[in-house]
């Protein structure tokens, strides 16, 4: 693996950590007592963050596949 690829992998692993952090944050927020509207909005963002984690994993796979 070239140095450039190593750097890319490291950067996207960091991005994955940030998305995971965001996901956990919204999960905690959902446990708090909020109005129905607030819950709906936060739930939507939380679901997006789950999807983001999957997207970043996909990107990592693409980068790692390259020889």
């Amino acid at each position: 693996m070239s140095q450039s690829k190593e750097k890319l992998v490291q950067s996207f692993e960091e991005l994955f950590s940030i998305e995971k952090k965001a996901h956990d944050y919204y999960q905690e927020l959902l446990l708090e007592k909020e109005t129905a509207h607030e819950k709906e909005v936060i739930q939507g963002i939380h679901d997006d963050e789950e999807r983001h984690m999957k997207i970043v994993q996909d990107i990592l796979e693409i980068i790692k596949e390259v020889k």
Partner: protein
Amino acid sequence: MAGGAGEVLVSKKRLDSLVVSTNRIARGNLEKRVIQSKGGDELSKLASSLESLRKGLLKRKKSNLKDISVPANVDEKVGELEKMNKLMIGRELKMIELKKEIEELKQGKNIPQTVVDSRYSDGIKLEESVVESLENEYEKMIQASDLKRDQKELIITKLQVLLSDSKRHEQALRDLS
């Protein structure tokens, strides 16, 4: 001529008396009145002026004595005034800050952090940092990489989804605040 000599003698006595009074006043002794003499001559006018001066100085002296008398609770009063002063300055600064924030809101600038609900301020900061990283670092990094063109395009498309969602999240959190 005898009358003239007598007149001179009287005048000298009156003058001596005025000199004594002047010296007494100069020493700060203001209690004794300046002897006044009848007649409208120069010495009478001088005596009258000197008496006015004595009265004025006496009045000022009494007034000063009253002013410099320090009340027993002066430290307490000074402390209260200092507290009031600090409070007023604090309020004034807060008012200036609030006026500035209101002006910025009127001009459609970013909502200041102080009015963002604390429940969501962490989320807003998080989304802001993601947006900034995606816009300024990740796309450029991919463009500059050794990846194939189609791989770059695929990754950038995915990054744009993340960017668009993160911006939407940030706005949604601001709307909830």
